[in-house]
């Protein structure tokens, strides 16, 4: 085998990869663009917010509470070695607001709503509902994807806020009520150390995550192979890709926001 043939396989991979990136970029920009072109699909936006946001509240509350509780437990154990348990409130709040809130809320939504988005769009493709939209002169991107992306942008910041509040409450429950940290110190240190930039950073992250989830999951569903196996693979693929992207973007955003 000559050298050119050896290069052909990785070359093909790279070209395919770049092509997918380009297509997904066009997919996203078109979907957002249609959001600003009349006629507006205001009917489906609340439905999508309900699906992505409202129905994720319970799972976000549960994960938020336990995250706050375990942070408090671990933090107390570490801080007590330095006799600094008074700092517990600020430790819990900063970790949750800056990192864990946006990331964990987004991961929970990916598992719950993201997989469903991919499966739904994939099945619409198998059953020719997307072609049917085309034939009825309705733009499928505008009808299906645009409302999901805007719903993601609205829902994720709100879910992250809920996660943050419940997490801090969970931390309070364990730190103050169970382990006996001073209540005034818990909240006092928190108010003193949490700055606007921390909250702002968390907000930006949650917005970006909302975009990533709806964009990637819709795109993978939309480009899925139109068979049962293709949609099954696409759903797994969407959850994995979205989760990895959330963590990578989290690092990139943190390095810019610090």
């Amino acid at each position: 085998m000559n050298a050119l043939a050896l290069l052909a396989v990785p070359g093909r991979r790279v070209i395919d990869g770049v092509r997918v990136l380009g297509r997904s970029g066009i997919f996203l920009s078109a979907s957002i663009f249609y959001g600003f072109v009349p006629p507006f699909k205001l009917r489906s936006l609340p439905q999508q917010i309900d699906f992505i946001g409202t129905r994720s509240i319970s799972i976000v509350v549960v994960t938020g509470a336990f995250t706050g509780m375990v942070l408090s437990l671990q933090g107390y154990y570490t801080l007590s070695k330095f006799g600094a348990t008074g700092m517990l409130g600020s430790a819990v709040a900063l970790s949750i607001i800056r990192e864990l809130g946006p990331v964990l809320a987004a991961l929970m939504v990916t598992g719950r709503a993201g997989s469903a988005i991919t499966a739904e769009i994939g099945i619409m493709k198998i059953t020719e509902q997307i072609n049917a939209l085309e034939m009825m002169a309705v733009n499928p991107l505008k009808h299906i994807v645009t409302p999901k992306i805007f719903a993601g942008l609205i829902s994720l910041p709100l879910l992250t806020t809920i996660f943050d509040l419940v997490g801090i409450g969970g931390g309070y429950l364990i730190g103050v009520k169970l382990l006996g940290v001073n209540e005034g110190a818990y909240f006092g240190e928190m108010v003193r150390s949490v700055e606007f930039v921390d909250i702002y950073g968390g907000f930006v992250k949650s917005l970006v995550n909302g975009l990533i989830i709806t964009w990637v999951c819709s795109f993978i569903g939309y480009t899925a192979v139109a068979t049962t196996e293709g949609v099954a693979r696409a759903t797994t693929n969407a959850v994995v890709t979205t989760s990895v992207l959330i963590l990578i973007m989290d690092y990139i955003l943190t390095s810019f926001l610090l």
Partner: protein
Amino acid sequence: MRKTYNGLVASDDVTCRFRKGKVTVILGGSGSGKSTLMRQVVGLEKPDSGTVHFGDRELTSLSRAELYEYRKKMGMLFQASALFNSLDVFENIAFPLREHTKLADQVIRTMVKMKLELVGLRGVEGLMPSQLSGGMLKRIGLARAIIMDPEVVFYDEPTSGLDPISAGVIDKLIVDLNEILGVTSVVVSHDIESSFKIADWIMILFFGKKIAEGTPEEIQSSEDPRVQQFIKGSPEGPIPFTRTDKDFYEDILIP
């Protein structure tokens, strides 16, 4: 018109003409390229070369927005009906009206009821698609396809997968709609019996090539052995059952 997939020719320089106000049936076995041909005609897929004319306009070079204007004059019944699972029957049929018109709810209600009456299913408005049988789904899909009063209706294998009675109902509907509404109908099918019943004009495709066309009588009396084999459905004949050209014994004996 010509279209290839990964080197496989799906439409091999096929020319077809659909007469206004008539029922044209495109017949062919599985994989003969008949669905692909129809998808190119309606613009769901772009031909590699060739043109599609609708009235005096050429469709393949239109922009999306222009094409959408023409799509409003077309209706299509999909093989799997393609109803929206999240909407009930009424909203499914009303969908194109809600998207493209500003009609009052009362008017939409009346129009939906009229189309439901046409397909003989008035009374199921409130049901979800998952609660309907295959034959009913097809009829609801048909009601949706004709809600905008199209000039052309395309049917993708309208009777496949249906019991004989449901299939008969669909056949009758195709003919009735053609007569009552004066629409041009294009049917893709492999159902010989129903095709001969409904067609004004039949076209037979074989591996992407048009091998015969004519009125049902002309096709019946055709002397082309491929046509005779196809309409009799016999496994022996010039249309091969196997797809490989390698000799069977050679293939298993020589590793």
